[in-house]
């Protein structure tokens, strides 16, 4: 039997380990700068607004809305071939940060810009849980 096709899997590193550890506990976390108070995503070792190093991690409510999206009919990686078509979206979280994710748990045809969504968690590997979104 053919080996199950794998998908790209994040390899946590210095900047991102806390994020992936939290995701494993089904928490979506983000960084906020203690100097300039602005949120940022993706996680970095410094603030991308003021270059400060004093960053705190905060829990997100996981609620947001779709800023833009696409329905992909092509698998960029063999691991996605069984899921076509699938939705990639840019989601604005209510805490003021923005991230890429998939919209799952609905017909791709109903996804719209500004649609309210909420985070769900998908086990990608035994070690990695991937935050995704469903219609709220």
């Amino acid at each position: 039997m053919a080996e199950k096709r794998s998908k790209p899997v994040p390899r946590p590193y210095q900047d991102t380990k806390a994020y992936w550890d939290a995701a494993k506990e089904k928490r979506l976390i983000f960084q906020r700068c203690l100097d300039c108070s602005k949120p940022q995503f993706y996680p970095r070792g410094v603030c991308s607004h003021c270059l400060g190093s004093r960053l705190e991690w905060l829990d997100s409510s996981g609620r947001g809305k779709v800023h833009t999206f696409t329905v992909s009919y092509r698998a960029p990686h063999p691991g996605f071939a069984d899921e076509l078509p699938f939705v990639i979206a840019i989601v604005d979280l209510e805490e003021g940060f923005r991230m890429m994710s998939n919209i799952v748990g609905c017909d791709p045809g109903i996804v719209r810009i500004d649609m309210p969504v909420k985070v769900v968690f998908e086990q990608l590997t035994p070690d990695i849980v991937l935050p995704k979104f469903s219609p709220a």
Partner: protein
Amino acid sequence: METLGRKTAIVGVAESDIGRVPHKSKFQLSAEASRLALDDAGLSIKDVDGLFTIISTQGGEHSSMLMAEYMGIRPRFTDSTSMGGSSFVAYVEHAAAAINAGMCEVALICHGSTNISDRGGRAGPVSSKTEVYGPMQFEDPYGISIASSYALAAQRHMHEYGTTSEQLAEIAVATRKWASLNPKALMRAPITIEDVLNSRMVSSPLHVLDCCLVTDAGGAVVLTSMERARDLKKAPVAVLGTGESHTHRMISQMPDYTQTAAAISGRLAFERAGVSHKDIDVAEIYDSFTITVLLTLESLGFCKKGEGGPFVSGQRTAPGGDFPMNTQGGALSYTHPGMFGIFTLIEAVRQLRGECGPRQVKDAELALCNGTGGVLSSTGTVILGRV
């Protein structure tokens, strides 16, 4: 602002064999294009003392060292700035600056790629890697691709401004008309707006005919001082104005999905050239996707933000239209080896020299080239003029 003052010129341009060239390496394509461009200028490889190059994907590390070694040159100015398909347009700025500063005299910009032969086809998987290190771990696991990245921008533009798939298709149809006039173009059969709309959806709202080709190709451009250019084989084409910038690397970090860095690089190029939009006779705009062109025209200021759809309607950019654009057939229909920027320069120079036969834009005196790289991430803009 101080202009570049017509102090540097493009004196040689050429492309290599293009299309599907499985028997030649990307290094050979780059070197052969270089030889042809130097021939075009009446110069030889011995004259080259500045090298500007980036080779795409595997085997492209340390590109300028690698290509210098391959072609037997020891440059005194070397640059492998890596900002995707716009790199070569940005290299014109770097080369002009280096020549003006006396740091090199003959600059060679070159590129070669075997994208189609490496990949075995347009629909082949982009990647088979499984472990993602670095910030792309916040995108790759969601199945992002280059086409999907550009589609995210297209969807947002449609939402904000009512842009339609028909308007995007106008660009593909007009570009194909130019390709039909170019014997070197790979896709020359006419297409209609309906053909584009009925073609397979890749990433909504982008259809396969909204997407560029994937080919093998090499290209090269030679620059030198205007003083030296006057003694060479062909009439020099002056570098009048240049600009470059980038706003992000990953599509999830794009500050505004309806505007590219051409808003910065274009403004710089126009200011430095001291010319205005209405002066431009021919535009060569990197068309990785139809949406790339639409966003670039707006960002460059050829029309207001949100008005790109109406601007390209009625086949305005086609042969006979009042805004001749992508006159060799573009990345959509002529060739696209993965980083197309250099081909915008090659065609602009040929148009300004009057070498384009049936696709010649009459009395073309000023041309604008704009390269876009990454995922709408980086741009280089160059304004060129007949001397």
